[in-house]
Structures are given as structure tokens and as C-alpha cells.
């Protein structure tokens, strides 16, 4: 028997692990989580390696029936979620801490209240097919194997190993960890820090101003490959005619209509539009928590500032690791 049955799939639920690096020169996207920090946190809390396969939940999460007792952890977006126990009682499923769930329980995720993507890790990690060293679903290429798709109702999922989590009783830790300041729907404009792109200086000066001070909004044309932004239109007096070359998640491309295109986890490894900036690594997890309608501003920073921001984030993760070693 499988370990998990999908009772309801949610808006877009996929398996993601650390991603598929090493094949970019063959045209293969890196993929992996939209919010890598929350994937790592969920795994640490569940007692896994940081890059184990988890479920990435989007906007509205799934309902899952567990056939064996497991240790779970949820990180990232705060989603209303509950555990329905085999005896029919119902308790809240908290975010940011380990939870031991008895066999026969259902975890039922509702809508994301803050942020967009939740990460559900289970002790041992999710199993299933691997392609090019990764279980991350890449919908466009159909990786991995025939499972390279979103979860559907009725799917049966495997876990790695045979680890039984807990002793069959419900155990909820009395503490929680949160690493990201999650955007509230319709709330404040998020600031994404950027390093300049090669073609930034080719913008005309009003466009430079608009990029530095303008507020941009995620359109409905947003997915795991990237976000199309609406807001101020930017222009270059002479648009450079480029041949495709490398791009990375976080790259801000200027599309021919003067709109920004922010590349995300599933972006192709190459692209041919001018690059005006690159969101720094430390701010990519927060960017992965944005949803259509959210507003962003860009702030140019130095490489040193980018390095410092990342080091700070690593210290926070190291702190979680140290704390978990003690509990």
C-alpha cells in the first residue's frame, strides 16, 4: 500500500527537492522550490536532509490521507490547515514545527493567508521517480518520468525508506520557527533587492527612475517559470539585438512591450531579452511567496550587501539547526 492518498489536489501541488543543477548546458531548467528557504526549513523540522523531496503547495493546499504514522512539518505560506484524526476529532495543523500524525489521519490544507506557497515535508522525504538526479516536477518538460506533473485527486504517493514517524499518537511541538516575513494579501509593497543587469544602463533616464522608484504588480500571467509584471513601462533608446545567453532565477528581463519579466525556478537556462537586474539570492525565497496582485519595488544594492544578506539568512538556518539538535 502507498503511504499517502491524495483526496483533493489543491490549486497546484508538486513534488520539489533541491532541484536539477548540472544540466543547464543541455537546456534543462534547475527547477526546485520557488521558496528555497522554506523548503530547507520544512525538511530540517521534519528531520531530513535540507534538500529532501517535499510537496510545494500553491494558494490552496491539498487534502492528504496518511496510511502510516508520520512526522510532518509545514513551512512557508501560512495556510489554514487541520488534522482530522481517525477518531473523527479535528485539531489545527500548525506551521513551522514538527508534528507527529497517527496513521489514518487526514491533513487538510485550505487557503494561504500570508504568502503563496507552503512546503510540506515528511520524515524520510517523498519518494517517486527521479530524472537527472532530481524528483522536482518540471511541468513543461514532463520531468520526472511520467510523474512530472501536478498532483491529482486519487494519486498515491510513496515515501523514502520505511521510517515510521512517532508512536501513533498525535504530538504537536509547543514552539514554532518562522524565518520569512511573509507578504500579506493586499498589504505593503515588498522590496526586492537587486544587482544591476548588463543592460541596465541602456534604459533611458526616465525609465531608470521608474525602475528605481516605481511600484510593479504581479499580473495574472505568473507561474513557476516567471512573473510578468505590470506597472511602469520601461524603454531603451536602442534595444540591443541579443542572441540567447544564460539567465538565472531572479533575472529581470525587459520584454519587447517594455514590461518586466522576473524569472523564477523553472525558467529556461537561456534567454534573449535585455537584462536590467537580478534579484539577490537572499530575496528569492520572499519573491517565491508572491502571488498575482502583490506589489513590489526594486532596490539596487552592492555585491557586498547581497553577500551580507545571504550570510544573515544562513545564520538563521544555522540557528534552527542548532536548536533542533537540542530538542
Amino acid at each position, binding site marked *: 500500500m502507498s503511504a499517502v492518498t491524495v483526496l483533493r489536489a489543491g490549486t497546484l501541488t508538486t513534488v520539489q527537492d533541491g532541484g536539477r*543543477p548540472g544540466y543547464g*548546458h*543541455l*537546456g534543462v531548467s534547475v527547477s526546485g522550490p520557488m521558496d528555497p528557504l522554506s523548503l530547507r526549513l520544512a525538511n530540517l523540522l521534519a528531520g531530513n536532509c535540507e534538500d529532501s523531496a517535499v510537496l510545494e503547495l500553491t494558494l490552496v493546499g491539498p487534502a492528504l490521507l496518511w496510511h502510516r504514522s508520520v512526522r510532518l512539518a509545514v513551512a512557508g505560506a501560512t495556510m489554514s490547515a487541520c488534522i482530522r484524526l481517525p477518531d473523527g476529532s479535528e485539531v489545527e495543523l500548525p506551521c513551522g514545527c514538527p508534528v507527529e500524525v497517527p496513521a489514518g489521519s487526514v491533513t487538510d490544507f485550505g487557503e494561504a493567508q500570508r504568502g503563496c506557497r507552503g512546503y510540506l515535508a515528511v520524515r524520510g522525504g517523498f519518494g517517486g521517480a527521479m530524472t537527472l538526479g532530481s524528483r522536482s516536477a518540471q511541468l513543461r518538460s514532463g*520531468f520526472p518520468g511520467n510523474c512530472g506533473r501536478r498532483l491529482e485527486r486519487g494519486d498515491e504517493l510513496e515515501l523514502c525508506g520505511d521510517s515510521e514517524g512517532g508512536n501513533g499518537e498525535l504530538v504537536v511541538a509547543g514552539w514554532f520557527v518562522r524565518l520569512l516575513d511573509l507578504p500579506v494579501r493586499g498589504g505593503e509593497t515588498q522590496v526586492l533587492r537587486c544587482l544591476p543587469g548588463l543592460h541596465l544602463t541602456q534604459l533611458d533616464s526616465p525609465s531608470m527612475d521608474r525602475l528605481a522608484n516605481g511600484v510593479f504588480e504581479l499580473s495574472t500571467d505568473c507561474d513557476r517559470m516567471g512573473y510578468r509584471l505590470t506597472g511602469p513601462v520601461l524603454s531603451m533608446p536602442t534595444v540591443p539585438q541579443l*542572441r540567447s*545567453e544564460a539567465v538565472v532565477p531572479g533575472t529581470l528581463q525587459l520584454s519587447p512591450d517594455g514590461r518586466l519579466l522576473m524569472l523564477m525556478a523553472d525558467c*529556461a537556462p537561456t534567454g534573449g531579452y535585455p537584462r536590467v537586474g537580478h534579484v539577490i*539570492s537572499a530575496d528569492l525565497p520572499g519573491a517565491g511567496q508572491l502571488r498575482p496582485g502583490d506589489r513590489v519595488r526594486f532596490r539596487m544594492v552592492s555585491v557586498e550587501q547581497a*553577500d551580507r544578506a545571504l550570510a544573515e539568512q544562513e545564520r538563521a538556518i544555522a540557528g534552527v539547526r542548532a536548536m533542533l539538535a537540542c530538542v
Partner: protein
Amino acid sequence: MKIDEQILPTVVMLGDAAVMLRWECVDEDFPEATIPAIRQLISELRLRGVRDVIPGFESVTVCFNPRQCRAVELAEFLTQQVRVWQTVERTCGREVRISVRFSCEDSPDLMEVASFAGMSVQDCIRVLAGCSFRVRMIGFAPGFPYLSGLPECLRIPRLATPRRSVPAGSFAIAAGQAGIYPQSSPGGWRLLGRTEQVLFDPCREPPSLLQAGDVVRIDPCGPLVGGGIAGAVR
């Protein structure tokens, strides 16, 4: 790939997790196998923290985990290496022959391309068969090769309206380049023929039939080659 050591790449940062080496003068005096060879050399160094080494027409990009190495140091190191590497002659790539079928179904744009070039369909196929294409990079989709080496007379623009679906294996040209669609996808290039060969299979090692630096030659087959109905098409 020996080139002048004066021609050094500029270093471009792609954010804090990738460094691009970019040569400005690729078209003039830069042998087209140089970039694939440099890519290969960087990749073989297996530097700590390096995730991907991606070739472009005029660039090589090194993507890394910023938690494990620093952009500035990596850029400095690579620039020094490249200065040495590019003065040494090297070969890169294999010759790969790809069997391409030319038929009414497989070659929807062949007639238009031939008449654009002012030649018969048969002559057009003959010209393609005589080309020695070089894989400059793989991109757009897993296994899609960007090929240089198309004769000037076949420099035809992209379709004004891209097709919603191009069949897998389509051999196509546009804007002075040739390519082969590994999987069915939307596409704006002119479709000249189709191959049964599998360009990308994630279960194969290596997964991609072609790599940057390879030389590709077309073996034409199908009813439009030589005699047969070609006369009628002409």
C-alpha cells in the same frame, strides 16, 4: 581554438549566483569551437559550489551556490585561466550525422525557403546536405541545438506568426541559424524536414544527442530528395 591572448573576455555578474565571461568580438576572429572548449575546461575543473557551466554564442556562464563560493574570487580565477587556455590550440566536439526526412508532411516551409533562395527544392536539400553545422549552444528546450553554418542565401526571417505546435524532430531554420526541435512545442522557425532521432532522452547518458561544439551533418532522405515527386514540386 588558438586565439590572441589580447582578446580577453569581460566579466559580467548575473546577480550573486552566476558569473558570465563575455567576448565582444566573437564574429570576427574567434573560432567557433573556442567557447564550447572553454566551457568544457571549466566544467572539468569541478570547482566547489559550481552548479552549471552554460555556453552562449559569445559567452560562458558559471552558475554557483553563493553559499559555497564568492563571485569576485571565481571571476578573477576564471579570467586568469581563460587567458592561458585560449592561447592553446584545442579541438572540441564530435561529428554527428543526423538523418533528416524531406517530404510534403515533414517539410511545410521547404518550398518557400527554396524559392526565397532562388533555387529548386532539390538544390536546397543538396545545399543543406553540404553544410557543416556547428552546435553553438543548447537552449530554448532540453536538447535544442542552435546551429551556425547556414549559407547566407538561406538567411530567411522567422515566421511572422509562430506555429502553435511544431512536431518533435523538426529541422528548422530562421534568422541565419538552424535548429532541431527535440519535443513538440510552439515555434516560429521555418520547418524544412524531420528526424526520427531522439534529441533528448533524460534516461540516456548523456541525455542530449548533441553538445555545444559538435559538428552536425544532415543525411537527407525521403520523397523530396533526388528524383521522385521532386520534379512536380519544383
